[in-house]
């Protein structure tokens, strides 16, 4: 199955960052924000985070867990892991082509 990631339009980048963040275990909203800053340098704001989370949840790529006080952790689903793997493969292909072409262009 080729996941319909393109359907997320401009939300694709936050979605990818959130799926990557959840790939090593469940996290609540603020933990996702701090993790994303740590591994990508992208400062995601709460409006962007929850907009993307609600879309990912509706597509069945993340699932909410039981709330602890006011914090609700999210975990990535099997479908979410599959779509993340597809995206990573595509990105690796892009990186490989970009490296090859820039090396040719710069004569490296």
């Amino acid at each position, binding site marked *: 199955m080729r996941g319909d990631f393109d359907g997320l339009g401009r939300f694709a980048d936050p979605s990818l960052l959130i799926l990557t963040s959840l790939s090593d275990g469940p996290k*609540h*909203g*603020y933990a996702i*924000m701090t993790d994303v800053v740590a591994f990508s340098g992208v*400062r995601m*704001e*709460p*409006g*962007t*985070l*929850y*907009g993307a*989370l*609600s879309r990912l949840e*509706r597509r069945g790529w993340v699932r909410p867990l039981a*709330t602890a*006080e*006011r*914090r*609700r952790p999210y975990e990535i689903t099997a479908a979410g892991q599959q779509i993340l793997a597809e995206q990573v493969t595509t990105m690796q292909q892009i990186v490989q082509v970009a490296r090859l072409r820039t090396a040719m262009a710069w004569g490296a």
Partner: protein
Amino acid sequence: MMWPGPAGRLSRALVGCHPRRWRERYGEEMLDVLDQHHPTARTVASLAASALSTHVDPAYRTEVLSLSRLRRAAVMSAAIAAGIVLAFGLLGLAAWHDRWHLSGAGGVGGVAFAPGQHLLVSAVGGASQDSMDTMWDITDPARPRQLSAFQGGEPTALSPDGRIVATVSNDGQPVLWNVADPGRPARIAIMSAGGTAPLWGEAFSPDGQILAVAYTDQIFLWDVASAARPGCWVPWPPR
């Protein structure tokens, strides 16, 4: 929890502007995130965009909005829009003001380049107290950047190496300014042993060693190889 600032209060209010079903699902979580986050203008903008997009989202838009909530959302959106327009307006005004804003009174009477440099000096006014020279960085000619302004006036000249400006004192005599650091000009010398007629022109020689100073009746050549101690040759025509 620290007492939220204006951005924090606005952010929390914007959480309340989301559709009811959305608030019931995510509202408490978002408020918890805001308690830990340091809200900024970006936070406010992202929440405003989120509130608007969820109201047109098919999953939430079936909700009938109450008139009071619609009014509240409209007022909030108008306030944010007005703030953004005002901020951009002020930024634009500041940029316009900075661009070619000339210090001093009156019109520009002289400009001079340093060859091969991105420096320009302009002069406003003549030999008077409120006449000024202005140094410009014109690396990007579309966005000239004012570096400094100092007492001077027309005529003015910039040495070929861009390190010395010759201008005029308020009593009509040539003055040298060190502009090696164009952001902090420093006066080097006043050549008070010059002519007595009105001064109307100054020019550096191509090697920067000589400054020609023209009065209405005589031309003086100054040795400015040592700018701190300029020496004057016999003026032409002699009297």
